[in-house]
């Protein structure tokens, strides 16, 4: 094919990819919520909205706790004020909240709810009214005759029932120094400063302004004999981002430098490397375009895995480059059969993944299949014209010791047997710690802060849905009853629900009836006469207390409700209304013995772990399918016997890698499996190139394989040094797999020195 025609075809294909992607492009095509991979059946939009709302509350939120061991509130309050000033002037902080200045909100809520005092009850008072109403009278007499009966309203709230209702629920138990609430736990006093951190700047220089600020302020606090503890997602984000940037610079820099040096040494030119990188870039671009055109969107995990696996295209590039290094004039037909078989077998295997109903596999399948085609076309269409290399003979294979052919098969068999013996020991493990393990200094702060302030909410919560707010409150109430029982049994420290403060109307009516009956009882009349009121005065007071039931809607209350409640409300849409029930101090699960309509426990870390396990199992189960597809494709081209020999190499490498990883004590996770998929792809390419290599090409083929293997090791294998467990697992499995594949391919050449393999 004439060079111009090749270029024209390449541009036509590139334009087709680009056009198809442009037609289907939509913003937000790259998803980051891992739970979307679980499939629609397990992931509702309401749950996603709830998680997004909670995430927004968490993102950017940093809590500073100043602790005084000596119990001096004045000094602590003054230091807190100074701390707040320091935070205010810091560029890393954009918002601060540390003073008590929210009485207007309480006043508005009181004004709205006080006229409903005849129907609103705290849980303890409801129980007393249901079981022992007389005790309410006795309690109030005891309070009246006690030393501290402050602020009693004998006319409108004689039993402080509304006061109890209004002040029930989680709240600070603090003393106010000026405007700063100081809390106490044992001998230790502490104050809290809630701040909003500026977004973490990614890219560019490695910067950790928040961690530096934390470190400086901790030193400042130590000088004042105080302790400063800090918790919040932005600290972890900054730490992880800085770590990743350092790793990318170190590992990425090392591997790029090593690959450049290697390319210069072997090819005596950087052009082959540049062209190979260009081919991979085309592959990645083609993969993205195909996913957008065919699926509309993809998850970032599929993108990362897909990009990595598309790196397989370097095999085609180096195979072509090494072929063109031969002293004889290179012809396309010398190399095209091997390249085509490598492409077809890999593509079919990955396209088979695309036919499964699972989002991650679909996306990876389309991405890698289309990406490999794009990279392959770049190699075969552009390389013949663009690649300029000095030809030179090679005698690599001749340097290898001559081995009997059986050695190669023995090695394959040994690896297979070794892997098979390891299989029973296989253990699986997927959790969020794979992505990030908090550093000791932040974990220690969090641990100590949690001990002093045990009322931080759990990451798990209940999501409650109803057709309207009335049904939602009714369902929440049923849930709250179950949670109260769990709280009483110690399975849960506490919980927070809208219905605790604003019970469903049915409950409000029942409470109204309880109070109505109570105020009509002889014991209440006796209470007043005992205090010195006449019977007539008592009856007049009681008549005023027995007020009619009043309607108030949830939206009306939410307008004045405190943030601790309004944050629980998710709103209503066509699908109904939704709310969150927050949990504190979860010690035991499951919390519900039986399911409640419209109520769902959402546990994001567990859900993510479950999705990762599900995707890992799927990939593992589909590996045999990939193997069968590759075998059939190769067998059609080479015959069954040679196909067996070809497929034996990647299979042995894969099983051997899995065995070694298991022997190393690792619990197999999604990232190991993704690496195994890549090892298999690499193995297929090396085996196909080896088997189809002609007698005059063997050294150059071995060089291509060695170059591809070594660059893969440098590019991805070095990831084994990463501090992030998921990346390290991926890198380690890939490094082991690549070494095994390279060794087997070398062994193949050592035994295959006689005769033509084609």
């Amino acid at each position, binding site marked *: 094919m004439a060079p111009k025609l090749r270029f024209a075809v390449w541009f036509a294909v590139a334009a087709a990819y680009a056009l198809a992607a442009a037609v289907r492009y939509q913003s937000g095509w790259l998803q980051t919520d891992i739970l979307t991979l679980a499939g629609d059946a397990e992931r509702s939009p309401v749950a996603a909205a709830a998680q997004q709302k909670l995430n927004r509350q968490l993102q950017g939120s940093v809590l500073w706790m100043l602790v005084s061991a000596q119990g001096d509130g004045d000094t602590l309050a003054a230091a807190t004020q100074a701390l707040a000033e320091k935070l205010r002037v810091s560029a890393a902080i954009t918002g601060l909240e540390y003073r008590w200045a929210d009485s207007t909100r309480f006043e508005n809520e009181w004004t709205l709810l006080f006229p409903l005092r005849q129907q609103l009850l705290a849980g303890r008072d409801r129980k007393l009214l249901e079981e022992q109403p007389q005790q309410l009278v006795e309690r109030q007499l005891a309070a009246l005759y006690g030393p501290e009966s402050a602020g009693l309203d*004998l006319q409108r709230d004689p039993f402080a029932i509304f006061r109890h209702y209004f002040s029930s629920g989680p709240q600070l138990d603090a003393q106010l120094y000026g405007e700063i609430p100081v809390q106490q736990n044992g001998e230790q006093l502490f104050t809290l400063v809630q701040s909003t951190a500026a977004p973490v700047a990614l890219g560019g220089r490695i910067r950790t302004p928040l961690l530096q600020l934390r470190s400086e302020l901790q030193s400042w606090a130590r000088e004042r004999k105080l302790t400063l503890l800090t918790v919040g997602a932005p600290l972890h984000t900054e730490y992880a981002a800085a770590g990743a940037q350092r790793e990318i610079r170190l590992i990425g820099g090392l591997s790029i430098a090593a690959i450049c040096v290697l390319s210069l040494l072997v090819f005596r030119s950087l052009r082959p490397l540049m062209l190979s990188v260009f081919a991979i870039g085309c592959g990645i671009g083609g993969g993205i375009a195909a996913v957008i055109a065919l699926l509309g969107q993809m998850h970032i995990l599929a993108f990362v895995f897909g990009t990595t696996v598309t790196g397989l295209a370097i095999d085609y590039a180096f195979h072509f480059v090494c072929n063109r290094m031969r002293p004889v004039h290179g012809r396309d037909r010398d190399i095209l059969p091997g390249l085509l078989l490598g492409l077809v077998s890999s593509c079919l295997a990955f396209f088979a993944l695309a036919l499964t109903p699972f989002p991650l596999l679909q996306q990876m399948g389309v991405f890698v299949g289309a990406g490999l085609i794009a990279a392959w076309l770049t190699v075969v269409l552009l390389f013949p014209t663009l690649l300029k290399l000095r030809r030179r003979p090679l005698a690599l294979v001749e340097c290898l010791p001559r081995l009997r052919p059986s050695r190669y098969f023995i090695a394959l068999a040994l690896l297979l047997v070794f892997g098979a013996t390891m299989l029973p020991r296989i253990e699986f493990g997927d959790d969020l710690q794979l992505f990030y393990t908090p550093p000791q200094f932040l974990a220690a702060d969090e641990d100590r802060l949690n001990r002093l302030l045990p009322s931080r909410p759990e990451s798990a919560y209940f999501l409650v849905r109803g057709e309207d707010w009335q049904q939602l409150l009714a369902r929440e109430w049923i849930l709250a009853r179950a949670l109260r029982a769990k709280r009483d049994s110690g399975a849960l420290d506490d919980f927070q629900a809208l219905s605790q403060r604003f019970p469903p109307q049915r409950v409000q009516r029942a409470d109204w009836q309880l109070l109505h009956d109570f105020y009509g009882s002889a014991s209440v009349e006796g209470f007043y006469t005992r205090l010195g009121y006449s019977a007539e005065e008592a009856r007049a007071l009681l008549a005023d207390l027995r007020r009619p039931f009043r309607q108030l809607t949830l939206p009306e209350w939410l307008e004045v409700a405190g943030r601790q409640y309004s944050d629980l409300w998710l709103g209503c849409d066509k699908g109904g209304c939704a709310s969150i029930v927050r949990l504190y101090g979860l010690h035991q699960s499951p919390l519900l013995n039986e399911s409640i309509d419209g109520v769902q426990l959402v546990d994001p870390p567990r859900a993510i772990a479950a999705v990762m396990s599900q995707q890992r199992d799927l990939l593992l189960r589909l590996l045999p399918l990939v193997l069968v597809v590759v075998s059939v494709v190769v067998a059609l081209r080479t015959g069954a016997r040679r196909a067996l020999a070809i497929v034996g190499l990647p299979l042995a490498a894969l099983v051997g890698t899995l065995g070694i990883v298991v022997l190393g004590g690792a619990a197999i996770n999604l990232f190991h499996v993704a690496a195994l998929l890549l090892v298999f792809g690499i193995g297929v390419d090396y085996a196909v190139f080896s088997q189809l290599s002609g007698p005059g090409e063997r050294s150059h083929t071995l060089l291509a394989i060695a170059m591809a293997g070594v660059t893969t090791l440098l590019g991805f294998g070095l990831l084994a040094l990463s501090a992030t467990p998921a990346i390290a697992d991926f890198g380690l499995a890939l490094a082991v797999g690549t070494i095994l594949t390279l060794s087997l391919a070398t062994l193949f050449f050592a035994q295959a020195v006689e005769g033509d393999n084609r």
Partner: protein
Amino acid sequence: MGARWLILWVGFCLCPPLLALEPQQQRVLAQIEARLEKAPQMLGRFEQKKTLPQLPRPLLSSGVVALSRDQGISWRVQKPIASHRILKAAGTGDDVLARQIAVPLLQIFRGNFSALDGLFHVSAENGDDQWQVKLTPKTEAVGNVIASIEVRGDRDIKQIRLAEANSAVTEMQLLELRAVDESNPQFEAEFSAEATE
């Protein structure tokens, strides 16, 4: 008034500002605190007269009081009703106002007036026979609940007069207050069961 009190009290306690006692007052308070017998456990009786503006007659009561440095104050009313309360800084129950007012009372019963400097203006007189301490709120938040607290005594606290902002006045006479051993059966009995509200 109750609403406003509660609104100001919900979520936190009284408001000790950052002003310090004048040196002269500090000296007098130190002398008074030195005069006071501060045993870790004390047992005695009380007589109380509470005058509420809404009630036609004062509420008179009497009973047993026990002071414990660690466990708080046991306040057992024996007449005209039987009731028992234990006041603690970190109390239980839903009544925020009643719970929070226990804080200054606890400090007073412990004779620890200096600790109240953050909450109140403290004026003290140390006479030959008796001493007197008067506490008036420093901030509006406290002033919305308490008008003043007057405390008199010699070796022990003899009388506390708590005037609330809503004109309620509680006068407590402490009688026969004496130091007791931790294992004193009567003292133990006062703290053996939690008070019901």
